């Protein structure tokens, strides 16, 4: 979707302001939100792509006006309601009203913590040979899906060069909407600054994205 989360190349957000000696969490609730998202995801309530999609679909003013973990909280609530794990009135009520819905992997317990500290595996067997190889010129397709995609707007329609082949991986555009893993080849594609930002761009800058094969066409 063409949402405000897709920020690459936007102007007007001001300077980057690093915080000296930044704490890991700025409030205790942030840590609880992080833990709940990780636990419910690991228990099988949703996948990582769906959780990203639900943050992206927050209304633009909420997305831009909320802190990072506030977005995680709002996205988590919406996701759990939509998937039927909580009822819409329960958060306001402060306790469970409806019966629980079974989780794919069961209750998240202490024994599950170790396994979630290592990232999941996203590589999958290929069902077709790769269309592109390093060195190929490719154009990022001019597509505007209204659901989740990992093709940022700032590269669409532009020509780059395939630099790396990462094998076949879970396709977020499908996984986010419960349409299966639909594995696709993944490539690092490099663009010149001027190709993306015009003739005034800094000639010393190159930008790459990781692009799934359906995002690309031969150029």
């Amino acid at each position, binding site marked *: 979707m063409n949402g405000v989360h*897709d*920020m*690459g*190349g936007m102007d007007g*957000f*001001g*300077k*980057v302001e*690093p*915080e000296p000696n*930044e704490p*890991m969490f*700025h409030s205790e*609730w942030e840590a*609880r*939100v992080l*833990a*709940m998202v*990780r*636990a419910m995801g690991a*228990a099988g309530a949703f996948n990582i792509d769906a959780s*990203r999609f*639900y943050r992206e*679909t927050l209304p633009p003013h*909420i997305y831009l006006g909320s*802190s*990072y973990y506030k977005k995680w909280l709002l996205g*988590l*609530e*919406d996701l759990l309601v939509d998937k039927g794990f*909580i009822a*819409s009135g329960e*958060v306001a*009520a402060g*306790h469970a009203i409806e*019966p*629980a819905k079974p989780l794919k992997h069961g*209750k*998240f317990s*202490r024994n599950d*913590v170790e396994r979630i*500290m*290592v*990232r999941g595996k*996203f*590589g999958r067997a290929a069902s077709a040979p790769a269309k592109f190889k390093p060195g190929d010129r490719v154009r990022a397709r001019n597509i505007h899906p209204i659901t989740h995609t*990992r093709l*940022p707007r700032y590269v669409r329609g532009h020509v780059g060069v395939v630099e*790396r082949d990462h094998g076949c*991986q*879970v396709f977020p555009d499908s996984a986010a909407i419960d349409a299966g893993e639909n594995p696709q080849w*993944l490539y690092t594609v490099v663009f010149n600054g001027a190709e993306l930002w015009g003739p005034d761009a*800094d000639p*010393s*800058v190159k*930008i*790459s994205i*990781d*692009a*799934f094969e359906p995002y690309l066409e031969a150029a």
Partner: protein
Amino acid sequence: MSDHDHRHDHSDLSETELRVRALETILTEKGYVEPAALDAIIQAYETKIGPHNGAQVVARAWSDPAFKKALLEDGTKAVSTLGHVSRVGDHLVVVENTPQRHNMVVCTLCSCYPWEVLGLPPVWYKAAPYRSRAVKDPRGVLADFGVTLPQETEIRVWDSTAETRFLVLPMRPKGTEGWSEQQLAELVTRDSMIGTGFPRTPGAPS
């Protein structure tokens, strides 16, 4: 989806805290999670992951050419051979800074970041100014960090748009000949592994 437009979000902390507590109560009452498991997740994030892991990887690469070669070929595999660093998931790609090329990592779409080797990302990495400008004006962003590079140095920005995670291997500081890995690791900053900073200079106050 529920309607956030009816919510008045003025960062009212107590309201947010209440909502978080309510949600945790519901998830617990429904038998989805154990609160002690949530505690354990938080404790693991606070103690097991962090830039100290990445710093050990970098220090080893600076000290051991064979390890460096393996690291640049397959980051996940190479890091997994370091017993003292927590295991990393698949798809870790390590990119090397040289006098000719400086690498910088961003996630314009959200906040993708190599947690296992760098810890949880800082707020600035997840916020709009960095995410919007890193791909269009990386030199301007570096200036916000007080970092200046020669104009002839190529800047390569890696936008983390998939599950690949990128770690920058910064250049080894001069004046560190003969240093131990432990000494070298102390020079490696988090930002130098994102590409928005340099390692500490030997002898400079940290």
